[in-house]
């Protein structure tokens, strides 16, 4: 008989008595959290360090997890949002976004370059530049929706804003990016 799938909420509840159980939350979600962090930080070392810090913070406050929510990824994104914000304030760095499609390609042999890869690099660079021109609020909301795949309701909980504000921020962010990259539709076609 197939083993019943345990929800994140059930695993977190079990980890209150058996802390090692929380390792299963890490196994399930560390890739998504790592990618979330990597988009917002300049180096991979930093991303691994921050991802660990996010899971440590989640572990320390797991008693407060709302167990009516079976899936905990939006909760982890909310913690990640705060941890990254804390780190930014501490480091006093200018906030930027670090979409690494270009970085992935940079590690390759230049002789392997193809037209499609060049197009991808250029598109990535232009998207980076456009995203950097958005306000942090609008950018974060759009990335949570388009890249992390959260629903409006989940984003509302992660960022602690009304659902209507989620919609207006996404709409404003898309509109601004289309202004900055007028030929975007041709690029994705």
């Amino acid at each position, binding site marked *: 008989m197939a083993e019943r799938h345990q929800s994140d*909420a*059930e695993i977190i*509840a079990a980890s*209150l008595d*058996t*802390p*090692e159980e*929380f*390792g299963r939350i890490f196994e399930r979600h*560390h*890739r998504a959290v*790592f*990618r979330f962090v*990597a*988009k917002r930080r300049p180096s*991979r070392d930093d*991303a*691994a360090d921050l*991802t*660990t810090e996010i*899971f*440590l913070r989640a*572990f320390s406050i797991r008693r407060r997890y*709302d*167990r*009516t929510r*079976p899936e905990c990824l939006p909760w982890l994104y909310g913690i990640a949002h705060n941890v990254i*914000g804390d780190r*930014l*304030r501490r480091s006093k760095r200018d906030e930027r976004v670090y*979409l*690494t*499609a270009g970085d*992935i390609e940079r590690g390759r042999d230049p002789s392997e370059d193809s037209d499609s890869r060049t197009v*991808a690099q250029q*598109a*990535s660079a232009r*998207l*980076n530049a456009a995203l950097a021109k958005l*306000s*942090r*609020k609008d950018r974060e909301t*759009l990335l949570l*929706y*388009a*890249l992390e*795949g959260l*629903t*409006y309701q989940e984003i509302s909980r992660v960022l602690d*804003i*009304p659902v209507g504000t989620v*919609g207006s921020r996404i709409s404003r962010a*898309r509109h601004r*990016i*289309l202004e900055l*990259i007028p030929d*975007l*539709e041709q*690029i*994705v076609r």
Partner: protein
Amino acid sequence: MTDRRHPVDEALRRFAGNPGPSGAERQAMMHRLNDVFHDAGISRPPSKTLRLGWAMALVLVVTGVLVVLQLARPSETSATMEEIASAAEKVNPLDMPDQSYLYIASEWTALAATPAELLEETEFDREHLYYLAPYDREIWVGVDGSIQLKTTRHPPRFFSPDDERVYYEADLDEWEHIGETITETFGPPETVETWPTELEALDQVITSHIAGRERPPDVEYLEEALNILRERLVEPQQRANTLRLIGRLEDLEVVTSDEEGTTFAIEYPDQGIETRMVVTLSPEGYLLAEKAISLEENPAYGIPANTTVSSANYTIPRVVDDLNTP
């Protein structure tokens, strides 16, 4: 509202993919985390009962029978708490038929901190804007654990006119829905947190929960015990034993006691700031009020000395027939 095929979203997905962690990165993260999970599993201190046992044995050896007699005489706090616990035991359990709700109304004030980054275009040179956020709350808890929560937020109280100006210039009142009443509903939880009723078993669970926390053990113990009493249906015996355990806390002192209720207090350093936690119980052991007072100035937060930084006043829980009845 949920059009995920918008060209901007497509472009982001296609050209902004980030790689996941490598195997080595994953292992390094897991190694650090496993150490913490493992330590949390084995570092729980011996139960309070065990610690008390050792302490009593030591006292007996050193000072003999005289001290035994002294120990047999309860402190003022534990004697007062025993009186309340005895009264709590005699209260009839609340009868909750199907389709009924436990109802509690409360008035709260919380210390709120808004990060400077949310004050985007407003001039502000600290990392956070601190203020006191008052709100009223009503809670209906169903027999199955489902919850209806009704919250009304009131205008904040500020520590300086400048803080107030910044708050309104950044439109935080709109963001925080000041003046609005918001009703939320939550379905029954998948797992319900339960507490033992028997005195020593309850003590062990509370003690295990507070392992590794930052504040002094008596403060964390009191906080955890109050969690059992806050906005929940608590059987009389469990309420009574929770109060008896609170009465064992050495640093807790009785402030006032009359027919309206009894107030206790405990002082402790909270992040280096001397703080006083004050708790009021009804004569039957219901939690009526709690507050934390910052006794010293907190320059980092801009909070003057003797400021009540959080408070809550509760009505005594009662059973109602529907979600509209306060």
